[in-house]
């Protein structure tokens, strides 16, 4: 099965074209240019757009706008191409790319998204890590000093494990179905609702 996978939830948008488990190509850019990458991936693989059989899309958590660009793109593609979609959490994809590590995504406003049984949002200072736990992701990079002081081990900033890679979205994708069933993982209510209490 030819799967097109992409995730625009974090600062580095990732995309990959995967055929029956074989990664035909993988690229990285920004959310606004993810379709340029997708277009290039297909051309490199000499594949036609209509040959894509399914989509795997990152559902976040990450930047709200980034998550929406990914899902809006996926839903429109699914409709235009008549193909099913599976959602994969950005944290799950990070975890798959760094086995044994704890994914920590920068949630801005002094918070991080982490996978603790389920995806959660919390202040990095409240993240309890067992000594020697490897932490990966944009949040691990941003709060390196704080997390290292708490006992975490964080790979160098340029390590590819810090960035979600769409090959893992394709690998983790299950239950391909209607695009509308794939929901964004915001993990935070809008400020206007929060202020209303």
């Amino acid at each position: 099965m030819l799967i097109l996978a992409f995730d625009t939830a974090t600062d580095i948008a990732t995309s990959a074209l995967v055929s029956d488990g074989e990664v035909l190509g993988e690229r990285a850019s920004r959310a606004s240019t993810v379709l340029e990458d997708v277009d290039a991936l297909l051309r490199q693989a000499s594949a036609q757009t209509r040959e894509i059989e399914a989509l795997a899309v990152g559902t976040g958590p990450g930047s709200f706008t980034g998550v929406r660009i990914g899902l809006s793109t996926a839903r429109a593609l699914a409709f235009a191409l008549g193909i099913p979609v599976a959602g994969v959490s950005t944290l799950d994809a990070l975890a798959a790319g760094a086995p044994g590590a704890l994914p920590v995504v920068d949630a801005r406003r002094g918070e991080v998204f982490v996978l603790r049984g389920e995806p959660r949002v919390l202040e990095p200072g409240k993240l309890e890590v067992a000594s020697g736990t490897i932490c990966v992701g944009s949040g691990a990079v941003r709060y390196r000093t704080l997390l290292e002081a708490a006992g975490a081990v964080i790979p160098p900033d340029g390590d590819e494990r810090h960035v979600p890679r769409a090959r893992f979205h394709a690998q983790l994708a299950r239950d391909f179905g209607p695009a509308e069933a794939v929901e964004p993982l915001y993990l935070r209510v809008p400020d206007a609702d929060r202020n209303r209490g």
Partner: protein
Amino acid sequence: MILGLETSCDETAAAVITEDGQILANVISSQADLHARYGGVVPEVASRRHLELVTPVLQEALRDAGAELDDVELVAVTAGPGLIGALLVGVAAAKAIAWARRLPLAAVDHLQGHIASLYLQPEPVPPPFLCLLASGGHTMLLDVQDRATKAQVLGTTLDDAAGEAFDKGARLLGLGYPGGAEIDRLAREGDPAAYDLPVARVPGLDFSFSGLKTALLYAVKELSADELERRRADLAASYQSAIVRALVEKARQAADELGTSRIAVVGGVAANSELRAALPPSTALAPLPLCTDNAAMIASAARFSDPIQYPRYLGLDAYASTA
């Protein structure tokens, strides 16, 4: 056929029009109810809702038009100005559809879209004309010379937009959101001369509505709850008539300066019944269903724009403001 998408503020809209400007479908899913409890549009709430609605609205528009995606030859989308997070939902969807079908994409300016609401069938209004654009986000006087060239801005609001003034006034009077329709309705039962609410005199062709809002605030403050209940319709009528007077005066002045007698009015406030009645009979008014934000006007503007060919639109971004 042209498929249009509009998500710049709080309406998720999709439309299908023909190449010669006939509307085949014009679907608008308003979020007004959703934002009513906040008394205004909350960008993050709007953006979340756009994502939920954008593909269903698009599919509904094609269904209404009795069309398939195969019939679409051009995709048009609002690229700005507006709420950036909201715009990006529509731009991402439009790019994806255009790419999947290798169609050209028109990145439409929202203000040009409002003007282009006048170019649709059955009664298209050809330029040149002086255009008053009055909505929740904009109050502008525009010199429209032809359909393709970007209109020249002759005057704009220095503070609140006219629609915003209606919303804020409605809130002061304890009315619902959106305020324009509420004030319009209540004003019919009131005396527009009951209160002298002054609109700031601004030189040139610009507008200012923040002083008027303050004047209303003071008028309301002087009244007890009972009195406000009795005078509410008079206040609404006086407030509305002050806004309408300012809009009409400046539109006439601009038309004089341009040396034209042709005035056209577009945007959400163009639906206001007093404004429609106060303008000279020769004024071209956008049809009511095309006053508020919609995608038919975006598709209409695309007819007169240079569409971007595949693959040059793949990196297209939205923009929040024109400046």
